[in-house]
């Protein structure tokens, strides 16, 4: 038996929980879009984190959560890569400017 299945709560039709699952999906998609424009990755990162937390809340309430949760996690990873790269580029330019 799959061990995760024991953790799955009873499915519910709570509109609040469904709203959270939808919000998670929307925020996940927004975060994916914001990853590619330099410092907008910070906003994308925040959206992705909120999306992931909302996805987890929806999961605990027993509504379908996977689409939003996965989008948000991909958003966290992409925005992290882009943000840290962006930060380092500025740092490298600053160091180069200081050297010359």
């Amino acid at each position, binding site marked *: 038996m799959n*061990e*995760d299945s*024991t*953790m799955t709560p009873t499915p519910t039709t709570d509109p609040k929980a469904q709203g959270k699952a939808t919000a998670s999906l929307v925020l996940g998609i927004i975060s994916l879009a914001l990853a*590619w*424009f*330099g*410092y907008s990755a*910070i906003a994308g*990162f925040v959206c992705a*984190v909120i999306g*992931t937390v909302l996805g*987890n809340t929806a*999961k*605990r309430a027993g509504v379908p959560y996977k689409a939003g949760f996965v989008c948000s*996690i991909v958003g*966290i*990873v992409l925005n*992290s*890569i*882009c*943000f*840290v*790269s*962006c*930060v*380092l*580029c*500025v*740092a490298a330019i*600053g160091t180069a400017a200081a050297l010359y």
Partner: protein
Amino acid sequence: MKSLAITPYSLLIISGWLVGVLISLRKPRPISRYDGFYCLVMMMVGAMAGGKLFYLAINIKAVIAEFQTAEFAAALKTVLSGGFVLYGGFAGGIAAILLVCRTNSLDPSVTLDFLSPSFAISIGIGRIGCLLAGCCYGRIISETGMRFPTQICESIFCIMLCVFLLLRKRNQFRLFLLLYSVFRFIIEFFRGDSQRGSLWLFSTSQWISLAILIALAATAIAPRKRP
């Protein structure tokens, strides 16, 4: 459209995290696959926030001076470009995991023990990113200008620590804290990068290592006093 550069540093940090996630899929596991994965996702978020906040806290004077002299947008860019502090990231990551344990009704000690090898491997691979980025380097040890390879030493140590923790059955988190703190205290003597805080004899990281060791000793002694 402006091109986006992806640096090896960020790729290796994410790779380290991904290897940590893969290690958390091992069996037997005391927490579900979903909970382990969610903990590690939140750990990364907490680590990024904590690492940056700690960096800002250490360099608070420079940050205030930057905002007083430069324009807000330019100052913000400079401040954000500073970097991350590992111990700050570690504290942020642990705080995030404890928060997840609270929301998802998990046992914190079991969760931290189970995820400890993932922490070690994440640091180990992340340090290779430091090597490629040219940060966290060692002091000059020869007349030819050769530096002590602190990043490589820390990386090898953390990978070995991960293997050691995987072989252990219990108290992995305490062992991780103990061994990493001792190692970090020693390796700090060989660090040569100037952009780090220090107080009296030791660097900030050495003081934190000492604090962790004292806290570990206190928690090890404390249960014996109970009736």
